[in-house]
């Protein structure tokens, strides 16, 4: 079982990112579930969403306490939330940032998802869309295949710039 | 002259009280609506008047439903029938309690949604089926089992509430004027969308008058101006003949009030307030009829 926790702010598309990741994993022939933190979500507040990926059907509904991977879509949440809480020893971290960050000794990757989204002009109501670009980064990290990442994005979004953004993130991911 | 059909949809041997104004009204309602009609009836006297399962004294399909739900039930029924291409009239026949009190939310919802149905409130101004407790439609000063000293609040203005939903057609009526009632039902059913008729239904046991005087009591209500017959068609008000006449030369309200035991011991202040309210309503309707408001 591979467990992922995604940190973002309400309205940034963290839940959609979780769904895209789950869909891509399913397209890879695996089983997956994706779910938000079960609460009342408010725009702008720090939120988390979760993904489980496994080779057999997933029967667990309880929340993820010990993630294998933490994704930080909005680094500003790190000021108020301990994003590394419960992370497994050796668990990896993916941060939306231009420069690599020290993530408490955990293997960390950085990619400028915001910059990519702005370059691709992927914005909704003035906010950059990060959840499609992040799939490219996850493919580069080997969590999902790039082919499935693209097919998941195409299933959910008709605008081809979303796939371009994922491709850019795939190229630009810095370990 | 309007010919009221001979065909009867209310058969003999109902369980209605002698002189029941509500059942007399329903007789004309059904004659106007005709055979292709379904009645939706919430808890009220009419639930009992039909008779006991497996028999029924109504030669028309009747769907009996829980107290608060008549308008919503009719809403679903009308929607399903129209979707199936059927023009069957869906008529709610509800008492005042089921309309102005417990049923008003469903009524408001169904009207706001533009449901294609006719909602009729037959108003005997109290919960008759349970033995005459006050309802929101009980008039000021009237004694009921829960207002033994007379009601201290005036009657809820149901028509103003319904009018606020801007239905294409709404009217008041009274079984003492059967042709007027008959024509209003026909007219209401000629419209698509929610229509409404509010029938004052004299009730011998509840109002405490003798059973042969139902029609007389209805006429007194209109002639004293305590009940006004009018229509609001596409927003335009028409005061009907009997009430027009009453506005020119009304009988004193006391003639109506004294004829009923329920107003026994009513205070002079209450009578005066009822007269003032009736005068204000007449004035408002006259202004609306002339288009000045």
């Amino acid at each position, binding site marked *: 079982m591979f467990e992922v926790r995604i940190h973002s702010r309400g309205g940034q598309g963290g839940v959609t990112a*979780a*769904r895209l990741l*789950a*869909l891509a994993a*399913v397209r890879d022939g695996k*089983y*997956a*579930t*994706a*779910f*938000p933190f*079960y609460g*009342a979500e408010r725009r702008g507040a720090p939120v988390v969403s979760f993904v489980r990926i496994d080779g057999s*059907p*997933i*029967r*667990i*509904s*309880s929340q993820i306490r010990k993630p294998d991977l933490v994704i930080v879509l909005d680094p500003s949440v790190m000021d108020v939330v301990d994003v590394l809480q419960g992370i497994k020893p050796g668990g990896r971290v993916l941060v939306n940032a231009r420069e690599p960050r020290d993530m408490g000794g955990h293997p960390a990757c950085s990619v400028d998802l915001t910059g990519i989204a702005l370059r691709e002009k992927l914005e909704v109501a003035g906010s950059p869309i990060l959840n499609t670009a992040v799939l490219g980064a996850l493919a580069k990290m080997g969590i999902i295949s790039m082919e499935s990442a693209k097919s998941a994005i195409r*299933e959910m979004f008709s605008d081809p710039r979303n796939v371009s953004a994922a491709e850019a993130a795939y190229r630009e991911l810095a370990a | 002259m309007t010919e009221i059909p001979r065909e009867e949809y209310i058969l003999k041997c109902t369980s209605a009280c002698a002189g029941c104004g509500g059942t007399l009204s329903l007789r004309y309602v059904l004659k106007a609506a005709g*055979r292709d009609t*379904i009645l*939706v009836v919430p808890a009220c006297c009419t*639930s*009992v008047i*039909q*008779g*006991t*399962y*497996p028999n*029924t004294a109504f*030669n*028309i*399909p*009747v*769907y*009996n*439903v*829980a107290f*608060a*739900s008549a308008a*919503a*039930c*009719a*809403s*679903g*029924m009308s*929607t*399903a*029938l*129209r*979707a*199936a291409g059927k023009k*069957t009239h869906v008529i709610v026949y509800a008492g005042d309690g089921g309309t102005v009190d417990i049923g008003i*939310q*469903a009524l*408001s*919802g169904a009207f*706001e*949604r533009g449901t294609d149905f006719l909602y009729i409130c037959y108003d005997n101004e109290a919960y008759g089926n349970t033995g005459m407790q006050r309802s929101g439609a009980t008039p000021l000063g009237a004694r009921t089992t829960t207002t033994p000293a007379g009601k201290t609040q005036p009657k809820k203005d149901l028509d103003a509430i319904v009018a606020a939903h801007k239905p294409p057609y709404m009217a008041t009526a009274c079984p003492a004027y059967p042709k007027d009632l008959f024509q209003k039902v026909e007219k209401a059913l000629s419209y698509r969308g929610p229509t409404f008729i509010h029938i004052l239904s004299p009730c011998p046991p509840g109002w405490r008058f003798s059973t042969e005087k139902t029609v007389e009591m209805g006429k007194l209500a209109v002639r004293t101006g305590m009940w006004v017959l009018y229509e609001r068609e596409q927003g335009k008000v028409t005061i009907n003949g009997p009430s027009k006449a009453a506005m020119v030369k009304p009988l004193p309200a006391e003639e109506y009030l004294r004829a009923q035991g329920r107003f026994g011991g009513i205070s002079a202040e209450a009578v005066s307030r009822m007269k003032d309210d009736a005068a204000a309503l007449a004035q408002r309707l006259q202004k609306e009829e002339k288009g000045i408001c």
Partner: protein
Amino acid sequence: MLTVATGNKAVAAAVKEAAPAVVAAYPITPQTEIVEQIAEYVSSGELRSQYIPVESEHSAMAACIGASVTGARTFTATSSQGLQYMHEMVNWAAGARLPIVMANVNRALGPGWNIWAEHTDAIQERDSGWLQVYVGSVQEAFDAVLMAFAIAEDERVLLPVMVNLDGFLLSHTMQPFEVARAGDFIPPLHLPHAIDPAAPGGYGTLTGPEDYFKLRWDIERSMRDSAGVIRETQERFARTFGRKYGMAEEYRCEDAEVIVVAMGTLGREAEVAVDLLRGEGIRAGSMRVRWFRPFPRLDLSGRDVVVIDRDYSFGFGGVLAGSLAAAGGARPFSVIAGLGGQEVTYEDIAGFVRERRPGEEFWFGVNGDV
């Protein structure tokens, strides 16, 4: 082809397949997404239903009743307070023998305001004459809604069916599922007692004790017959779509010395606990009760039983535990857990089994460690 979506979306997708003539509904968390999606299907023309945006849940069920009695297929969805507000009409629908299908997203009852999973909302409707099924996955939610129409509308049943899915744990959890094309799986609805001006008659008129009593017995007779209809329908579903369901889902029960009984997602999570316990040498099994009405016969004889109730009947106990004790004479270790969305993991469930105390009741998180 598999898609990935929430339990709510799966319910809506199944409703689209069943194509009810009328949907009347009122929004409530965590159900809202179901009716939003249905409204979207209707608006886009993908679903040719009439959507009635009623002003309350009481009216939602009343409108379904009014539509259903004309012979129209009807659907609604609700949750928690909404189901409570609907209660009077829930009973009416069953008494009127109308095959209405409702999705109820299980959620705790106020106060205090709590939007998370609990079964007490639906459990409180258990005596209404509705069939009740509790699902454990998104796929199962989809499949159960399709089957619910076929079962409710079967002339041997003609009772409404409530499909229950756990708030958030299923309603908002995205899982892969297959949208089965209903095709002719649900035969056209023929309501023998449809209201018709050509055959005037009274519905729900004043009914004396003798006739009323017979009508009540008739509900129970159909409820008993429904078990066979459920079995037939589930077998037909398996032949048509390849997915098998039972009254309850048994997991590793054959040689089990202790069996965990639960409903909904807790019942699925219990299977993981069973695997964990088996690894420790404890011969555990689990039974996930799907159909709560009609209540299934479970073979629990000679085994320890641990029942997890995500519900409670004050002054009595866990309703599932009490039902099993009454039906099968089990003397379960009754665990009350998950109320108001309380987190219960498979490790917790394994703990209940390891430390079971038959005949006792244990409130998880209140009575200290097991």
